């Protein structure tokens, strides 16, 4: 049983670990080993699902529409996002090692992720909201 405060401390500890670890990696003598470079190389090669996930999390955490698209089926967007991510991983896995996903498609993945997190998988859904045009 973890209280909200414990979870806060865990989240802060993980962020602090990542920042310090990345600082160490950028000042050691091995090149291209920072978290930024590794994640960039993953996203541009087979694991472009990362770009989509970053967008989804941004929309899910920080934005979020009030009107649920799927009504009371709150589980549907969760299952759907898992299916989409698994699909992207499977597609990526089949690609060649030298494959590079272009920058414009990265932007497209990021934006579609934000839209998904905002409209379909929002944390701020209020079930009974009426909009002015309804």
């Amino acid at each position, binding site marked *: *049983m*973890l*209280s*909200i405060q414990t*979870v*806060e401390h*865990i*989240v802060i500890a*993980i962020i602090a670990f*990542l920042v310090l*670890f990345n600082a160490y*990696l950028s*000042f050691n*003598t*091995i*090149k*291209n*080993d920072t*978290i*930024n*470079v*590794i*994640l*960039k190389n993953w*996203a*541009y090669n087979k694991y472009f699902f*990362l*770009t989509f996930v*970053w*967008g989804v999390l*941004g929309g*899910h*955490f*920080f*934005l*979020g529409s*009030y009107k649920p698209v799927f009504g009371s089926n709150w589980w549907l967007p969760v299952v759907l996002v898992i299916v989409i991510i698994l699909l992207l991983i499977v597609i990526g896995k089949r690609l060649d090692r030298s494959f590079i996903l272009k*920058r414009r498609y*990265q*932007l497209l*993945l*990021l934006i579609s992720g934000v839209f998904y997190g905002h409209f379909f998988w929002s*944390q701020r859904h209020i079930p009974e909201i009426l909009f*002015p045009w309804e």
Partner: protein
Amino acid sequence: MKNINTLVNDQDFIKKVQYILIALFIILIALDIYLALDKTDNNTISNVILQKTDNGLFVLTYFWGVIAANLFITKKSPKAISPLAGTVIVLALAILIILFNIEPKMLTALSNFKYNISVYSFSMVLGFLVGYAFWRQKS
């Protein structure tokens, strides 16, 4: 400054860092599933971040945008400014946001809007633009 020639390309070390990152992702996902299923309500990572942002972490969303530009939008032309200067600009803007207390001001300014435009959409876009201008990686 460090001499660039002394940097070595060590694939084994990079592999280890990759494994640390993958392990961290898996731990986070497992922890969040556990938190969602346990008996304490509203203690998932999503909920904690949501409550934090509603209480004043405009800066967190700003960094979301900066990191998005850094990781996913690379730069083909040579860098206009040094990576160090870029990092300093990114951090300085974050400190300015805190010093000038931007979030409450934005919340007040936007409270008159009927359709409730999220304040954080502004900080996300701002972060993305700052990251795009000053903190991109070479492709």
